[in-house]
């Protein structure tokens, strides 16, 4: 059974092409390698 309102709330607006630049700039590029690097850096700093 589908709850219409609940399902409807899951739909979010789709970004338009004019907004692509903002989306790209705000994109989080952090991956595991960056996290590991950050951890190693903190570790080295503590040491």
């Amino acid at each position, binding site marked *: *059974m*589908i*709850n*219409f*309102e*609940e*399902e*409807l709330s899951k*739909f979010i*607006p*789709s*970004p*338009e*092409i*004019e*907004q*692509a630049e903002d*989306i*790209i700039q705000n*994109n989080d*590029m*952090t*991956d*595991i*390698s*960056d996290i*590991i*690097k950050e951890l*190693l850096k903190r570790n080295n700093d503590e040491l």
Partner: protein
Amino acid sequence: MNCPNCGNKINKNKIHCEFCGSDLNLYRKIWSTSNLYYNRGLTKANIRDLSGAITDLRYSLELNKYNTDARNLLGLIYFEMGETVDALSQWVISKHFKPENNDADRYINAVQSNPTKLDSLNQAIKRYNTALNYAKQGSDDLAIIQLKKVVSLNPHFIRAHHLLALLLIKNNESDRAKRLLIKALKIDVSNTRTLRYLKAIDVPVTVNSDPSAKQAAEPSVTSTIMPLSSYKEDKPNIIAFVNLVIGVVIGIAVTAILVIPSIKKTYQAKENNYYTEYVESLSAQAEKEEAMIALQKDIQKLEEEKKELQEQLDSFVLPEDNSDFYEALLRLSQDYMDELSKSAKDRDLVAIADRLTDNIFNTLDLEMDEREEDANLINRLKAETYPAATKFYYDKGHDLYSDAKYEEALIELDRALTFDPENVDALYFKARAYHRLKDYENASVYYNIVIEDYPDSRRANSSKEYLNKIQ
């Protein structure tokens, strides 16, 4: 390859970076795991499990953001699902990480080289956002109209399919929703939302926003659901066609009842006119024929007279001792026949009559046997010409009397009496002329002739009156 820590170029077989001393084994494991997820994503993309492929590719990129292949593939999958902006974002980022020898260049150029297509994709996104607003405001009809347009602009926009299917399910159009969801399933075979909606199509949609209410067992439609009239295509308007046929039949009937009888009547009147004209022409022709027959008879009669006269003329023998007479008679006869050949109004019989009064015709001894034919001819000519001559001269004398030219009138009246001594009118007006000239003696003579010789004539009483006056 580049060192993930310092970014310097190093040999890929090295365990430690020559520049920063970082342990490269860990990074190698991360990269191989990233490639593993990329491979899994690629496998799922090949069987159109796009949702599964997206999950694996995102894992791959979370492990290694420099995995260009994974990013490009993710962009392709986004584009296939109608998420144009997400696709372009991934390709742009991919190009940022790897500017050269990158397939993302080709993908971006393919999209941007067709501005019309790009605009239609953008229009689809805008209409989708508008439809979503309508749906959240409760204007389901408007949302459905917009979403139909979106689906036509971008048939791969799965989210638009989902929203439209949801609205159709809410409005009890499960069949149409099912068709829509099956189309979406062909694009992404494992899309959970698509599968969930398909499974729930036979179960009515509840509008209750309370999450706990969805666990209730009642599947029936609540009073908050307002079923709206669904869009139906217009059926062919048979009624209009039937009306048209009825109108044509009525028009034909009116024509038959009103117009055709008048046309028939007019035609009959024309026929009657033609018949009447024909009959009249026949009667006119008959009259002409009768006139022609009468004229032919006259011609025949005149030709017989001419022939008779000609015979008389031909049988006429000129005696040796009176050639002048016969020459004159012959000439006169010939002239008379010439006059007869003319029309009645053109004949001058008075001239013939005048010539008959010449001495040459009056000194003839008609008692001799050989003169009998001559006398007959002359008498015949006189009989034919004298009546016309006496009338001619009487009219002339009467006109002169009326103009008070009494002496000239007496001359003409005498001439008239030469051709007809019994012309009572000429005798009367001769007496009157003498009376006017105060020659009562001669007047009395002619008055007495009229009274005594023609007592029954219309001039007798007048003569008596005038005679009494002068006596």
